[in-house]
């Protein structure tokens, strides 16, 4: 009988212990798998959103987080200069504000308002109608929630009153809905509208013109994002230019760092727990079978073979538990993701737990390593087993 066969029989001989051991490892392994998903989940998800928006470079006035720092000035000239760069395919200025959408019955809804320069329509999914066409008469596109709340459709009118300056009371402006779109960074409960720059200045009357919080840039394929960043930095070294990758690295170091660290801490704890569980199970199992093991040695079975049997036992426990951990972890990840996505103002498309094949490979490798390490002490016990003394003790006991 091979060491694997002996190990299997040994586990089957104690089914309750084996099943509980596998269950414990599966639960702990599920948590480990989830922490591996969490360690890069936000970055992967955010990267998908950024890339889906259609722009791979962004420009702000300072290194404050996008939309939170001072605005860019002389935006029209800046946009033209950036567009003229060989490495750049498109540049679109974006400014942000807040407005009240006035319903037919006079009630108001707080709305996030964006003013966008002319763009080729990338960055969102058109659900109804068309994208923002600045040449239209005070055009606006809205997200699905706002459209549903105010029963808007392409062609409808939307009355917006800017609340960009707290000290001003501006009259509402009527805009024409050109489309219903899914904005990439829309929060789950957010109401969003986007109009042209001209429309924004009308809605938020009194706001300084020729400003933007952000310049969105799409690079040419041959230059790539890094080429476009370098070109813009040469042209305007006074501004803060960064690619999607650079933004992600920064977020990973700052805003996402809590989740990265908690995933590291919990991964370490779960690995240690699994190690402890398997070591304890195997050690107790060995201690209970010392007589058997001594007899095997007395019969001439080599230490190596018995050690191989123990390693196989560990591999079976950890292997079965580790495999079950994957679907269990996937289910758990769905639940944990749902809990975390309840945080306010998160983009609806952002996920904390994102499946990556890398995470599965890492999970398998870590679980396998744990299984090997956990078997070391029981193997040590077996290798050092004094045969005669053990036999004598077994007879006496």
């Amino acid at each position, binding site marked *: 009988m091979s060491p694997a066969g002996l190990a299997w029989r040994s586990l089957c001989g104690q089914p309750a212990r084996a099943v509980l051991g596998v269950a414990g490892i599966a639960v702990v392994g599920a948590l480990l798998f989830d922490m591996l998903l969490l360690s890069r989940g936000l970055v992967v998800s955010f990267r998908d959103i950024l890339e889906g928006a259609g722009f791979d470079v962004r420009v702000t006035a300072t290194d404050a987080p996008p939309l939170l720092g001072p605005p860019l000035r002389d935006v029209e000239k800046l946009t033209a200069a950036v567009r003229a760069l060989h490495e750049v395919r498109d540049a679109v200025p974006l400014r942000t504000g807040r407005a009240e959408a006035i319903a037919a019955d006079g009630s108001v809804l707080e709305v996030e308002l964006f003013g966008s320069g002319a763009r080729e329509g990338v960055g969102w999914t058109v659900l109804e109608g068309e994208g923002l066409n600045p040449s239209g008469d005070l055009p606006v596109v809205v997200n699905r929630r706002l459209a549903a709340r105010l029963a808007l459709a392409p062609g409808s009118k939307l009355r917006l009153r800017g609340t960009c300056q707290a*000290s001003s009371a501006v009259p509402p402006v009527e805009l024409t809905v050109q489309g219903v779109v899914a904005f990439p960074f829309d929060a789950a409960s957010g109401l969003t509208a986007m109009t042209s720059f001209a429309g924004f200045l009308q809605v938020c009357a009194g706001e300084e013109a020729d400003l933007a919080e952000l310049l969105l840039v799409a690079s040419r394929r041959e230059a790539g994002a890094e080429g476009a960043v370098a070109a813009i930095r040469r042209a305007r070294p006074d501004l803060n230019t960064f690619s999607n990758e650079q933004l992600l690295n920064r977020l990973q170091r700052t805003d996402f760092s809590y989740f990265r660290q908690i995933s590291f801490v919990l991964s370490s704890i779960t690995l240690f727990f699994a190690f402890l569980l398997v070591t304890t199970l195997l050690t107790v199992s060995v201690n209970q079978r010392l007589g058997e093991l001594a007899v095997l040695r007395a019969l001439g079975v080599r230490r190596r073979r018995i050690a191989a049997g123990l390693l196989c036992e560990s591999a079976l426990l950890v292997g079965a538990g580790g495999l079950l951990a994957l679907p269990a972890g996937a289910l758990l990840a769905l639940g944990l993701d749902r809990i975390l996505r309840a945080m306010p103002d998160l983009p609806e498309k952002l996920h904390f737990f994102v499946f990556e094949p890398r995470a599965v490979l890492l999970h398998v490798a870590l679980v396998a390593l744990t299984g090997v390490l956990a078997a070391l002490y029981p193997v040590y016990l077996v290798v050092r087993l004094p045969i005669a003394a053990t036999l004598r003790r077994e007879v006496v006991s």
Partner: protein
Amino acid sequence: MPSFLATLPLLSALAVTPAATGAPPSILVTRQLAETAGLNVGDVVSLSCDPSGAAARPFRIAGIYEPTPDPMRLVAKRFEARLHLPDMIGLTADPRDPLSPESVTAINVALRDPADAAAFGRELEARVPGLVAVPTARPDDGSGPFVVLERFHLAIALVTVLGSTAFLLSLMVMRAEERKETVGILRLIGVSRRHILLEVLVEGLLIATAGAIFGVLFAWVTEGAVNRFFQWRYDTSLVFVRVTAGIAGRCVALAVPLGVLAGLVASWTLLRRDVVALLRR
């Protein structure tokens, strides 16, 4: 004397310059800003709201303070300065806006009875149209970031308890198997199942209580290390982990019954068998 201090959260330009004629007004800066920019008490710095540094004004650093830890701004660099309100207005006011010198971002109000906050806010909004009055203690609608994080941590804790329970049960089953012969002999000589279970219960209670207390003590000891690490990592004085009496009580209240139950379940699987089966090798 200045009436109260305002906080300028974001400095657009900061420079250390030699002392200007006439004493410049004093400001406080955060420890983090002082360390990063190499500032000391008595230094004169220039502050400007323009990214190009235009219209900068000199200020003297009168003190360095530790900013109030804000968990919502955990990862933000706390580069802040506190100015006297007239200085702040002088620095930030828009010269084109005649009302600018009379404008502030917010007014903090401390009521005689904090319970009146919501009603006070509503009345104020009704009397002054356009004003927004918000109680600082907001009702918990379950969506605040820390409420969500608490739920997340609770979910993790539950999963950990589940894994630990499986672990515990397997150990208890092994312990019960070890005692199979002893239990068989006790049953053989007439000791009742009830008596044996009671013994298991007492033993389980002692072990589970000792284990739970050890666990709580271990958490209490490591609390300091965890806090120190994250305080160093985020350069903050926030407390991240605190083992309170309530938490300790909840842990013991969960661990002890689990331990006792695991022992009873494992022993019952043994006691269910007949005496002959227990004594058979």
